[in-house]
């Protein structure tokens, strides 16, 4: 087990805790950078998708995991980002301009849904965001002069600084770069007053208000940042798919995104990455697994959703902190080996909590 001796306030502010962090994240970065040389193009595509979902996941995590505002409508922001990108690329905008615009527009839409959401919490907020997602989906399908309706639209290639992004690995590098930037942005927010205000709203609105946190401002801001990040993911997703239509951005995707942050571990950015890997890899695992099953079961149409649902229930019951929580426990097990005690992570129940909710 590592004990960190702190001698400066800077140590609590900086992004890494100790040299080990730099080493391991450096190693991870190296692995990510060399992946296209080693892995098959198919797997690079899967990694790109993972990165894209993780970008959206960072957005949703800030809103749901840190600010405590649930959203069942994030597919809408995803869709707004994707369509903005497709339309702007078609209009001949350079990627360096169209990409941020896609994020900004999604963010603006986020403000629009954030404002009415100020008065809603919990289940009601979930329903409001769900309704909003249906509205956006409908707009994408009906606004044919711009979106080409259900026919869908092709997405042109990115041209970045004179280079055509026409292969999987090039898009992969862009997605990884954006993911890293978005992660750093989120980390910066979380270690500064805005991030703390988010957490304050999640844990106690009354207390947050009594300390001078303007609930309306910060909830709207959380929606805006979350939607903008998700919009960026949408823009990349458009380039990944090459062809988008409204039925790519349905309630199913919203649920998948929410599933991702819950299974990954609410309130942790590590959890986002774990969750994204889980959401992308599970269908593959099911596909492999499916061949082994008796045809009666394997050919059921809802098999995938059923397994997703089952896993979600199991996670909430047995590991509320998600994959990240499990990861912490495994790490702890090895760092104190052989002194691990089962009770270390038993949740302390206190009566003050029980009276509150």
């Amino acid at each position, binding site marked *: 087990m590592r004990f960190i001796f702190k001698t400066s306030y800077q140590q609590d502010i900086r992004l890494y805790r100790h040299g080990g962090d730099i080493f391991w994240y450096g190693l991870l970065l190296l692995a990510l950078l060399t992946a296209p040389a080693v892995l098959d193009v198919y797997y690079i595509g899967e990694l790109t998708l993972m990165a894209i979902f993780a970008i959206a996941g960072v957005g949703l995590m800030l809103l749901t995991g840190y600010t405590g505002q649930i959203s069942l409508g994030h597919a809408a922001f995803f869709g707004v980002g994707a369509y903005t990108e497709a339309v702007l690329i078609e209009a001949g905008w350079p990627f360096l301009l169209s990409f941020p615009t896609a994020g900004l527009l999604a963010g603006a839409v986020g403000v629009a849904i954030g404002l009415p959401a100020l008065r809603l919490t919990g289940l009601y907020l979930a329903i409001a965001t769900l309704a909003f997602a249906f509205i956006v989906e409908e707009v994408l399908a009906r606004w044919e002069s711009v979106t080409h309706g259900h026919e869908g639209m092709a997405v042109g290639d990115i041209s970045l600084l004179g280079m055509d992004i026409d292969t999987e690995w090039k898009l992969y590098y862009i997605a990884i770069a954006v993911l890293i930037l978005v992660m750093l942005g989120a980390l910066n927010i979380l270690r500064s007053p805005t991030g*703390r205000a988010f*957490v304050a709203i999640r844990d106690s609105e009354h207390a947050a208000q009594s*300390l001078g946190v303007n609930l309306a401002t910060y909830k709207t801001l959380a929606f805006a940042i979350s939607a903008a990040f998700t919009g960026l993911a949408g823009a990349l997703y458009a380039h990944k798919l090459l062809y988008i239509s409204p039925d790519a951005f349905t309630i199913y995707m919203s649920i998948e995104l929410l599933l991702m942050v819950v299974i990954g571990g609410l309130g942790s950015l590590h959890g986002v990455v774990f969750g994204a890997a889980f959401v992308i890899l599970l269908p593959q695992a099911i596909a492999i697994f499916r061949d082994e099953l008796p045809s009666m079961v394997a050919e059921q149409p809802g098999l995938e959703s059923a397994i997703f649902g089952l896993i979600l229930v199991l996670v909430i019951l047995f590991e509320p902190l998600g994959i990240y929580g499990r990861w912490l426990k495994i790490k702890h097990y090895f760092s104190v080996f052989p002194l691990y005690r089962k009770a270390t992570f038993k949740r302390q129940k206190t009566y003050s909590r029980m009276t509150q909710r």
Partner: protein
Amino acid sequence: MALVEVNNLAIQFGGIRAVDGVSFEISAGEIYTIIGPNGAGKTTIFNLISRIYDPLDGTIVFNGQDITHEQPHRIAQLGIARTFQNIELFENATVLDNLLLGRHRHHRTQFWQEIVFFPVVRHQELEDREKVEEIIDFLDLQHYREQFVRSLPYGVRKVVELARALATQPELLMLDEPSSGLNVEETRDMSFWIRDIRQQLGITLLMVEHDMKLVADVSDRVLALNDGRVLTEGSPSSVQGNADVVAAYLGE
């Protein structure tokens, strides 16, 4: 001039007048305590000053400014901090983060500066941290700095909440039953701290409290309430001896 002037304050919940025409004044540097049996309207007065409730009638003036219709988050920005009867801490954050949140009203950076973490943000964080450390030293919380609030015992949480209120550097500190749930020793610590807060930090205190020994120890003046109305006001001993107050607590 008084720091706080409450005039003829009233609020009604359904058919019940929880606070009915209450007036009082607190001068700067005073420790002012509100007592009364359960349901007398003590916490309701706190919530009215915090602007969690809208008063039906009356005015609240702080520092010469009418705050009767201010937005709730502005109250802290004007220099009023409070604690809650049932402790409202941010459970899934460390003690340090809770205290840093107390600094919220002093922040000058914008969110776009924070997302890039400009040097000005770093500078502000270090400044806040220094202020928070002063309060950690003041209330002996060094041992708990990095711990999550959810893992702390009740008595410590009470102190953390007091620390968080102090971190806002208020002019007026409102304590809602600072000794409730504390043992004898912790209550005595609390009474020392309350006096130190006034003497060393120069903060005016408004307190709701049941423990009459604590009230008598620290208060300059006491206001006794019953059924939302003022029974009497005066020094701790005169209020304790008042026949109406005794009747309200013990029955006729």
